């Protein structure tokens, strides 16, 4: 990978990191650290916030192979995937703040972050639920004779739910253009996944269905990029579904209020060492990129997200009446 490509991925990872750091701060009440006035106001981001801190390399590297018109489904931990697919961080932050100008007009929040205009069909509050949806979207593309593909992110916990098996089987039976991406952060909510997953895990299950897969170090953005390049090319060529198993680590707790104290401190320390942003920066330095250039990337990312916070804080709230809109249209009026 050339330096320019690595720099591009590094910029994206830093934007994801900055977005989630800012959202976390805003969920705790203030955004002072981000250049806005400190105050004792209530949380600007309400509700659960599932951060992907430490997992940015998977989102950045996989989505770098997707075109705008390709489709994407995500998990409850979907900020990174959404940003990587090309969504505007300010509109995303508006959604997290519950404002009318958010992507979902304040109706979805973090767990349902989506930008259909870039093919991002939504984060999902139900583990594994995006798998059948991605499969169906790929099936529609095939029926309609369209050239796009679908990428489907899910976590390691999803491999133990039925829709995982049903979706992979379906995609393989019909040879659908879908790349399944297991973003394996090694923990299911608060329980280590390997303690509750029989056999060799997600890659082995894909193999059992005849669905080719690759397993990579999900913290090594170049490794993910290379593996995804190969799999995406195969999917685009009409070879049927492929699975990428990217092993990474969730540095934060399951949800924003969870400090993750159930984890071994040594394990967390090791994960901090293996932080994909840190690894990518070290590699850039080795290749002659200056520390000043890296610092500028970090600053630019933080400045962009600081602007997103300002936009979100100033954005209007939805009208209460909007709660009755977009429920359904039966042509027979709305009953409350």
């Amino acid at each position: 990978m050339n330096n320019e490509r690595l720099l591009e991925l590094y910029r994206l990872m830093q934007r994801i990191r900055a977005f989630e750091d800012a959202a976390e701060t805003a969920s705790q009440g203030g955004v002072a650290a981000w250049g806005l006035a400190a105050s004792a106001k209530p949380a600007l981001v309400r509700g659960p916030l599932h951060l992907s801190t430490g997992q940015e390399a998977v989102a950045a590297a996989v989505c770098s192979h997707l075109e705008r018109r390709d489709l994407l489904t995500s998990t409850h931990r979907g900020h990174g995937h959404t940003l990587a697919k090309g969504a505007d961080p300010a509109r995303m932050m508006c959604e997290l703040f519950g404002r009318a100008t958010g992507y979902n007009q304040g109706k979805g929040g973090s767990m349902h972050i989506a930008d259909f205009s870039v093919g991002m069909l939504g984060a999902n509050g139900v583990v594994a639920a995006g798998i059948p949806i991605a499969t169906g979207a790929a099936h529609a593309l095939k029926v309609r004779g369209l050239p796009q593909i679908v990428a489907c992110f899910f976590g390691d916990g999803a491999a133990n739910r039925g829709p995982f098996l049903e979706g992979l089987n379906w995609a393989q039976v019909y040879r659908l253009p879908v790349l399944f991406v297991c973003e394996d952060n090694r923990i299911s909510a608060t329980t280590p996944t390997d303690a509750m997953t029989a056999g060799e895990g997600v890659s082995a299950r894909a193999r059992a269905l005849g669905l080719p897969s690759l397993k990579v170090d999900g913290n090594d953005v170049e490794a993910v990029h290379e593996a995804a390049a190969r799999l995406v090319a195969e999917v685009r060529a009409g070879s049927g579904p492929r699975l990428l198993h990217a092993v990474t680590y969730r540095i934060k707790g399951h949800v924003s209020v969870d400090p993750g104290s159930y984890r071994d401190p040594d394990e967390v320390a090791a994960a901090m060492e293996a932080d994909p942003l840190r690894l990518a920066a070290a590699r850039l330095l080795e290749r002659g990129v200056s520390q000043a250039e890296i610092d500028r990337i970090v600053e630019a990312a933080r400045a962009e997200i600081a602007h997103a916070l300002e936009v979100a804080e100033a954005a209007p709230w939805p009208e209460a009446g909007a709660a009755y809109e977009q429920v359904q249209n039966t042509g027979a009026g709305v009953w409350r």
Partner: protein
Amino acid sequence: MSMMTYAQAACAALAEAMRADPAVVALGEDLGRGGVFGQYRGLAEEFGAARVIDTPISEANIMGAAVGMALAGLRPVVEMRVIDFALCAIDEIVNQAAKNRFMFGGQGRVPLVARMPIGIWSASAAQHSQSLEAWFAHMPGLVVVTPATPQDNHGLLKTALACGDPVVYMEHKELWGAQGEVDAAQNIPLGQASVLTEGSDLTIVTWSRGVAACRQALALPVLGGIHAELIDLRTLWPWDRATVFRSAAKTGRLLVVHEAVQVAGFGAEVAASAAQETGCRIRRLGAPRIPVGYSQVLENESRLAPEKIAAEVQALLAQPR
């Protein structure tokens, strides 16, 4: 006009929609062979395997895939075989299909029709005989349709296919062979009940298989001389409140009849709404809160017998208005 069975009427409506719009596809188990009840007969031959899709026995994925298909530009018709099996796909219909449009702020639309045949299917016991319409009527985002006749099954399926939101379409397992005249040009809007007989003594509101049961009850000699206004709701969401209230206000007495378990059934919604709006006298008749038994003797306990309906009519008429 032509004579058709309830199954043929739905098949004809679907074929018409598939000819008109290449985005309409059907997916489910055994569809290529015409479906379990023949309600897809001939469609695979006419439209091919790409549009009449035989699927694995995989209800969660059938429904979830339909959501994805709808988001990617198709108008899927999803076959759940019997509503009892649709419970394997409950996340996909309730959390995914029903919520999509609202939750994503109108970015996505899910125009799918989920066919979930309801009701007792003779001697099929507890897992093939349920009437779960109240569950789905309870869910914001879902349209709920319960056709009772071949004509309504034709007209309502076409309306459901034209709806831009998810429709739970509930045919009755024991109505597939029912025959009737069908006018293919007749359009039946959602939320419009059908007043089958006019009367002044009491109003009977029912739907699906309940329509035939009520007709049989009203023909019993014991109810001779009684003028009942018989209303088939046809769709449970949206339901035709205006027609029900107008009738209940006129007759002063309302009996709601359904095959589903009475406790927390949709009849409770109709009864409570009518009581609030009109102050009429009300009785309800549904099944006891027991699983449907296999033996005929046991199954009959859950069936809408005309005699049970007649007894409710008499009990209601015995009350002063």
